[in-house]
């Protein structure tokens, strides 16, 4: 640890020197950041970069589009290495622990960034950012991603590259239906519209299920613990909950807010389709596309694919046909502060033998110019994350209400809430996942949350209370850790 921190300090010192030196390279600033990256990368022509990507749809981008393009421009070959999402961390750390330098460019899940950075697996990027004049374009990444998915303790370790946020989708045909509208107003005294609070969400969901089931249910949400924990984190904070006491670092997850949210989540299942407790990503998605549920909350690709964007693309042929293509409505989920669930940043492996080239590729991918193309790939899983993506006229005309879609994503990128991020976050999340599966098993919410708090306290004690407190407060003081 001590040697590593000395090395880190040296690197930071080196990077400040590099700032001075970089003034000489600034004459190139007339070019775009993408061009600068290409220009500088040419000297590495002939090398190969190993790029670690989440398996599945994600790697299609570097494999089919950006990889070949980059090779044409710079002569650097891109070798995409795929790993399932739950293996990304393992593979990264494994390579680091072994000092094998197997990867150059990494896809980093933001809430794992502190672990990876503090373990020394990630290369600090400030020196490169300055050397290649990228700060300005970095600043144009939508604020929540820029401020929260880039740095650990003030040092840049990743280029935020994915606007992952859980937003709400609703079926406009159901919400605009005159009979539904009249009936709902008569019962609850306000207009049937996308709910602004969880109370409204429940009332609308219940009403629609009561009138339309079993053909259509009011809502269907993530319920598998791994995904439901994102929704819990969001709703818990919307209800005013805090994860820890900032002074004592005692877990406060078992507060009134926690208990009421847990109870609410169980109540909500009653108007969702039978078996919803097992729903992961694909179930609410396919049910929504089939018109079987009126509301759902999910990642941005759902909003595009439900609207029929990318239809006919070979890579998306596993997606069931959408029956609601022109009826998709977009809104922020209740509370208006959507969860910035997961997401990706580009990082450079500290063990890489081609750090500079690896950084340049990341800068090029992440730049205004190239990222705009990437987020519009029909099969992309990278979601708009730059202010310019949201306002891009081409993107806004991709389907009839693509503009609405991008506006909601933009709003989410301002008010969104960060995933809890600590040292060894995964252990805390694991306990949370376990708590949620107990919840579906009908155990008592208070009892579950008391246990969860106990487990968290034990973890904190093991990791080191002071150390963890520092990291937590660092996180909690970010503008998007808690709703304003």
């Amino acid at each position, binding site marked *: *640890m001590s040697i*590593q921190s000395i090395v880190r300090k040296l690197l930071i010192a080196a990077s400040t020197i590099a700032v001075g030196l970089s003034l000489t390279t600034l004459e190139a600033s007339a070019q775009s950041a993408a061009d600068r990256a290409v220009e500088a990368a040419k000297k590495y022509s002939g090398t190969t970069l190993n790029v670690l990507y989440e398996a599945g749809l994600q790697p299609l981008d570097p494999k089919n589009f950006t990889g070949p393009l980059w090779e044409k421009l710079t002569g650097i070959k891109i070798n995409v290495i795929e790993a399932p999402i*739950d293996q990304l*961390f*393992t593979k990264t*750390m*494994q390579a680091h*622990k072994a000092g094998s330098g197997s990867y150059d460019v990494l896809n980093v899940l933001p809430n794992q960034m502190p*672990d990876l950075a*503090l*373990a020394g697996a990630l290369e600090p990027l400030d020196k490169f950012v300055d050397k290649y004049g990228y700060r300005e374009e970095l600043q144009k990444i939508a604020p929540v991603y820029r401020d929260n998915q880039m740095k650990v303790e003030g040092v840049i370790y990743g280029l935020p590259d994915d606007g992952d946020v859980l937003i709400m989708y609703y079926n406009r045909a159901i919400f605009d239906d005159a009979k539904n509208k009249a009936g709902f107003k008569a019962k609850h005294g306000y207009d049937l519209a996308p709910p602004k609070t969880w109370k409204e969400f429940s009332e609308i969901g219940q009403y629609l299920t009561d009138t339309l089931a079993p053909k259509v249910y009011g809502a269907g949400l993530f319920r*598998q*613990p*791994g995904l439901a924990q994102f929704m819990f984190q969001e709703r818990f904070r919307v209800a005013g909950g805090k994860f820890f006491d900032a002074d004592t670092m005692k877990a406060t997850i078992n507060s009134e807010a926690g208990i009421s949210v847990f109870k609410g989540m169980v109540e909500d299942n009653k108007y969702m389709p*039978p*078996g919803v*407790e*097992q729903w992961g990503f694909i*179930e609410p998605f396919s049910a929504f596309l089939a018109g079987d549920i009126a509301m759902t909350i999910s990642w941005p690709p759902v909003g595009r694919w439900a609207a029929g964007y990318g239809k006919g693309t070979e890579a998306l042929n596993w997606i069931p046909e959408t029956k609601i293509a022109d009826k998709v409505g977009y809104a922020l989920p209740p509370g208006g502060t959507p969860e910035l669930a997961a997401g990706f940043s580009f990082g450079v492996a500290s063990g890489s033998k081609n750090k500079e080239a690896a950084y340049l590729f990341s800068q090029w991918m992440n730049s205004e110019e190239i990222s705009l193309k990437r987020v519009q790939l029909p099969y992309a899983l990278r979601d708009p994350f730059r202010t310019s993506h949201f306002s891009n006229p081409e993107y806004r005309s991709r389907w009839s209400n693509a503009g609405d879609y991008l506006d909601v994503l933009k709003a989410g990128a301002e008010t969104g809430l960060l995933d809890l991020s600590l040292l*060894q976050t*995964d*252990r805390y999340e*694991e306990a949370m*996942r*376990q*708590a*949620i*599966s*107990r919840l*579906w*098993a009908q155990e008592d919410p208070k009892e579950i949350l008391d246990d969860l708090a106990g487990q968290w306290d034990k973890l904190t004690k093991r990791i080191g209370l002071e150390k963890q407190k520092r990291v937590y407060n660092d996180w909690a003081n970010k503008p998007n850790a808690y709703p304003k």
Partner: protein
Amino acid sequence: MITSNSFADKLDQERWFKYFLIAPAVFIILLIGLYPFVKLILVSFQNITMFDNELSYQGFIHYERLFDDDRLWESILHTIIFTAVALPIELILGFLLALLFLERIPYKQVFVGIILLPTVISPIVAGATWKLMFDQRFGPINQVIAWFAGHEVKLLWNIEPALVWPAIMVAEVWQWTPFMFLILLAALSNVDREQLEAAQIDGASWWMTFRKIVLPAIMPVMFIALLIRGLDLFRVFDVVWTMTKGGPGTMTETISIYAYHMAFREFDVSYSAAIAFLIILILTVIVVAALRRMEVSR
């Protein structure tokens, strides 16, 4: 025996030959088997974690942690229960199957061949297959149950605490019962026919015949089969990994899954070495005890 010895004597002048033959195998096993073992012991006394890389001697701190780790003992408990339930089921089903195929049956080869299939496919594929089978919406299991129940069922095989274990158990039993079946079939075919017929003539009941003649005859083989399967079940990893990854929560976490988690998720390297050592210790005790018993029963 005498011939064997004199044969070896004759070869004495070429003593090197026997070592020459066995050397490569021993070398490879030492290289890949012994080195990791020694490394394990070393690492378990150091302190290598995600953040630290302390290589000096740290005493028994990681072994002490073992006793304070509820999740570890829970995972061991899961493993033991899993083994204790799956093993007898496999044995009994395998035995019944063997009885069925012991007698004349047309197309026996074809039947046996098909039944054999699960045992030779990858446990990962078996796990994936059952994961798809048990999907509450798109899988056929709930559908079949619905036919019998006469109404729609939505059993949550991957989440309901009461159902996750049975689901994994079904996959495991499906894959390995044929293994038991084949071994027991071979053992049963070797039971002395004449003895059986004699017992029948004496008017012995089915149960008596089984206890007095069949069981003793197949006992040694059955014992080995149980030992092999028991060890496999104790280190079960692949099927659980594909079906639940130990979840929901840690509900289906077996000792191997937990060891993986500590090593490759938490990178608590030294502690995971201590866990590995504990597992090896447990297995050694089981095997030695089992072999002792076998010696006695022989």
